[in-house]
């Protein structure tokens, strides 16, 4: 296992992740567009009203009921997870290479990401 091979595998997995995420967002988007009433939309003022869609449990619950906006948010969460998975795979890859310095470096990045996501959720 060298750096180049490791990166190629990671790159492929990232692409698959993006594809799955985009498909989920597209499915939610189609559902949204065929369900909405013919009203007008306006996003001029910032009002984070629907707080159920701002947290992981709320999104999973909404998506499990096949609600359109919940599905879109689930797809976006999957997308946010792709770089996190990338760092996690780098931790494993460097550990396999017995590269202690860069195992620690990528572990620090993973911890910062985990802190941000947990702190936010």
């Amino acid at each position, binding site marked *: 296992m060298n750096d180049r091979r490791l990166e190629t595998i990671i*790159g492929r997995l990232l692409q698959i992740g993006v594809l799955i995420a985009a498909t989920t967002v597209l499915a939610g988007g189609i559902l949204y567009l065929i369900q909405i009433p013919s009203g007008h939309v306006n*996003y001029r003022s*910032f009002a*984070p009203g629907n707080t159920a869609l701002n947290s992981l449990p709320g999104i999973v619950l909404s998506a499990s009921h096949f609600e359109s906006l919940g599905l879109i948010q689930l797809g976006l969460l999957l997308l946010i997870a792709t*770089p996190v998975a990338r760092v996690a795979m780098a931790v494993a890859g460097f550990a396999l290479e017995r590269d202690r310095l860069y195992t620690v470096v990528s572990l620090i990045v993973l911890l*910062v990401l985990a802190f941000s996501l947990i702190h936010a959720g």
Partner: protein
Amino acid sequence: MTAWEFTAVVWGLSFLAGFLGALTGLGGGVVVVPALTLALGVNIKYAIGASLVSVIATSSGAAAAYVREGFSNIRIGMFLEIATTIGAILGAILAGHIGTHALAIIFGLVLIQAAYHSFKGTPEGDRPIESDSLGRRLRMGSSYPVDGKPQEYGVRNVPAGFGLMFGAGTLSGLLGIGSGAVKVIAMDRIMRIPFKVSTTTSNFMIGVTAAASAGIYLSRGFIDPRVAMPVMLGVLAGALLGAKILVHARVRTLRAVFAFVVLALAIEMIVNGISGKV
């Protein structure tokens, strides 16, 4: 505007932004945010949230292609991501406390810097083959293909590059952009890493940096599914097409035109921010 019209127009604008962003290397975010706020009157916080998500999509989506060419350096990228992710968290927290007018003005100033960077181009110049002592200890030096043959390169000034990367992360978290231009300056100009290696490693880093602020954006309500959906799908499709035809395109003229557009958007963002219209 009905939801159908809004979705279609936003998708189209985002596709164009992603396409031009990939061709010029400036990224889609710098055009998506002004387009949404100036042309469609979308609140800048929703625009920033949608842009951040699309930044992750293009970074992860293009990763495999860049790796195949053998330019990106995962060690340099990972080490500097310590700085960009911590900066991104700081930026995302700041974005929650800064008013929309001030955000628009800051965004405009960053756009001017991006346009300037694009106009000026990138001189290749002499590159050190030897790393300095810290670069050596961190084992950052590597090689990349030049005309089919591996060319060695060294890495210098790691602390200064690390510091600027913290700033790049903060901007990314504050404005929902990839801030690839600042990342490339840190690697190319300060750490003396070859330009090709800098740009591809920067692309790899952008997604991880954006992920660090995405959780905070989500919990603050910046990511509205009805806005983010067409932006993410449009930018991704445009960026993938842009990367495909990049090889055949005459980029220099395009870069100049794009830089001019970015400059015009920058001025409009600042004027609207000061007059309180955004």
